């Protein structure tokens, strides 16, 4: 089994929990469908977004230079980081130079990818995640299991216990409203005490030098507006050419993510606030390598809405942590092998290739094709599990020889009828691990077809 399959097996062992998780995410998918149905030009928006991203990615260096020029004019201090280590060092450098030690952070998958929290804590910085879901997983010393719904894997009773321990809420209390109110009070103090706010970036605009951050809670906005210093971290792929392009992407983002027509707050930052400082860290960390791949560069168009996770039958049942990657789900399984093919070789198999992810992707990434391509590429490099490679080789040999194929078919039908159960359901039969084999047909499809023709 691949590492994903092993972790997924542990997750699905709790059947009730698996169904609960599945249902919660399917509910989000249904909300997304309703929101999409209210926009007649949805498909045109997707096509436009995909074309805009493809165009931007084909001229990314130029657009980044334009963005840097305009951002600098607005008073933004632009930093560049080749990899996660440099990103972390840049952030720590900004803090150290100014003696800042209390940092409030809003959601940023990039800082998760760079493992910024642990790094800063080691250097004596007090890091508080302020998105409610992220705060929950931070208190639980876990990582987000979903990029939009970080604590979707946790039950409210578990969150109640966690808050009882850390925020001194009443023992046994699990009402979401009560728990959210407790977190609001606790985090409000942290916002007011913070001396620096760190946010991610949803979209950066080359033409204006500004950037946009979308949240429902208002946590990014408080963190970027109360402390004097605001640091924003973005991957190079967050760029869009013009402000008018925001209409296309903002219309797609929240509807795809949660089924809302728009997030509660869509903040546009153009330069620091009067009297404040704004630092922007532009990070590569493997993105240029992904861009160099003609087959996989389309994955850089991702706007991190999470729709592919909510719809994926594997994700819904196996949970985000089973992927073992910062970004889980279909898009995560496409992105991760580009960084470390050996470590994540199993992820492209965490899919039934049903194509639902591709159908819902707002920027039309051909996710299931990408997963299939990875299986082929990683297989050719000898990185996929040996069993899968052998099975593929045997399959290929048999399928290229019609006579052998017919013989094997006949043998299989006979075996299914005649062999005892103990032999049929050997560990080698992965299909039969959780399922019954279908009854063997009396004749092959070919024979039935011939008969029907007569």
């Amino acid at each position: 089994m691949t590492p994903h399959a092993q972790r997924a097996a542990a997750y699905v062992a709790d059947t009730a929990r698996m169904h609960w998780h599945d249902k919660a995410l399917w509910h989000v998918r249904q909300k997304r469908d309703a929101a999409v149905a209210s926009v007649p030009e949805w498909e045109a928006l997707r096509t436009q977004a995909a074309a805009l991203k493809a165009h931007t990615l084909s001229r990314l260096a130029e657009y980044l230079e334009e963005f840097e020029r305009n951002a600098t004019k607005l008073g933004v201090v632009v930093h560049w980081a080749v990899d996660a280590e440099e990103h972390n060092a840049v952030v720590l450098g900004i803090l150290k130079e100014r003696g800042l030690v209390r940092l409030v952070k809003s959601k940023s998958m990039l800082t998760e990818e760079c493992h910024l929290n642990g790094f800063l804590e080691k250097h004596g910085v007090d890091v508080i995640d302020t998105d409610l879901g992220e705060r929950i997983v931070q208190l639980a010393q876990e990582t987000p299991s979903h990029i939009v719904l970080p604590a979707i894997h946790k039950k409210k009773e578990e969150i109640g216990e966690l808050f009882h321990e850390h925020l001194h809420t009443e023992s046994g209390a699990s009402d979401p409203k009560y728990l959210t109110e407790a977190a609001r009070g606790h985090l409000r103090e942290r916002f007011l005490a913070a001396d620096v706010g760190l946010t991610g970036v949803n979209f950066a605009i080359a033409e204006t030098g500004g950037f946009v951050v979308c949240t429902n809670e208002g946590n990014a906005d408080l963190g970027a507006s109360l402390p004097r210093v605001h640091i924003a971290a973005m991957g190079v792929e967050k760029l869009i050419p013009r402000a008018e392009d925001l209409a296309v992407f903002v219309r797609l983002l929240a509807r795809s993510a949660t089924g809302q027509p728009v997030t509660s707050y869509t903040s546009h930052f153009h330069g620091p606030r009067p009297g404040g400082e704004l630092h922007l860290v532009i990070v590569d960390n493997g993105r240029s390598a992904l861009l160099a791949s003609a087959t996989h560069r389309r994955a850089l168009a991702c706007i991190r809405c999470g729709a592919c996770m909510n719809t994926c039958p594997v994700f819904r049942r196996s949970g985000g942590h089973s992927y073992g990657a910062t970004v889980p789900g279909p898009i995560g399984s496409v992105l991760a092998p580009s960084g470390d093919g050996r470590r994540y070789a199993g992820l492209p198999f965490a899919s039934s290739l049903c194509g639902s992810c591709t159908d819902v992707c707002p920027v039309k990434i051909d996710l299931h094709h990408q997963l299939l391509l990875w299986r082929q590429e990683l297989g050719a490099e000898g990185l996929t599990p040996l069993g899968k490679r052998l099975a593929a080789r045997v399959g290929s040999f048999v399928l290229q020889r019609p006579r052998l194929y017919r013989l094997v078919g006949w043998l299989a039908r006979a075996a299914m009828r005649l062999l005892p159960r103990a032999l049929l359901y050997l560990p080698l039969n992965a299909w039969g691990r959780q399922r019954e084999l279908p009854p063997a047909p009396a004749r092959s499809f070919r024979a039935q077809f011939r008969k029907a023709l007569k």
Partner: protein
Amino acid sequence: MSSREHILSALRRAAAPALPRPPPLAEWQTFEEPVAHFARMLAEVGGTCVRVISEDALSDSVAALEVVAKAQKVASLVPEAHPGNVQLAGVEDPHQLASVEVAVLRGAFAVAENGAVWVPGAALGARRALLFVCQHLVLVVDPVDVVPTLHEAYARLRFDGPGFGCFVAGPSKTADIEQALVIGAHGARSATVFLVG
């Protein structure tokens, strides 16, 4: 080589041959009654839309809001809606605004398709935190400034200098605990938009 040069040259080497910028979208949805649609969408995102006929009616309606009537501290940048009792002029440190219960601000325009109001930061300056730190938010918009979609909205916006602006769609909210919608996560616990005229 600096990291900047390193990244830019790696991206130049990696990029596909330049692809053209697509022509802008030709058409998108419109609404027969944008104002009514805005009110519906604002309700859907947890806010409340109130239509008043005049500025006199506006100040009466704002004063009559339960959250305003109960509030000790109201910060207003729209004197015709509410006089306010928190001094905003001269506030350089946004932390001084932490105890504001109601903020009354002007929205430049509203968007029918999603219930959002564009709140420009120009009038707020260093005090933009007010928009997020207040317990309740009151926004005042002219109904002629309700545009159908974000396409018209961005066509109205000019980002030609330092500044801040935010689309605010209803109150702050979260569904991070078991997908249960809770209003009032970190920002405003309620958002009321007054359309005047």
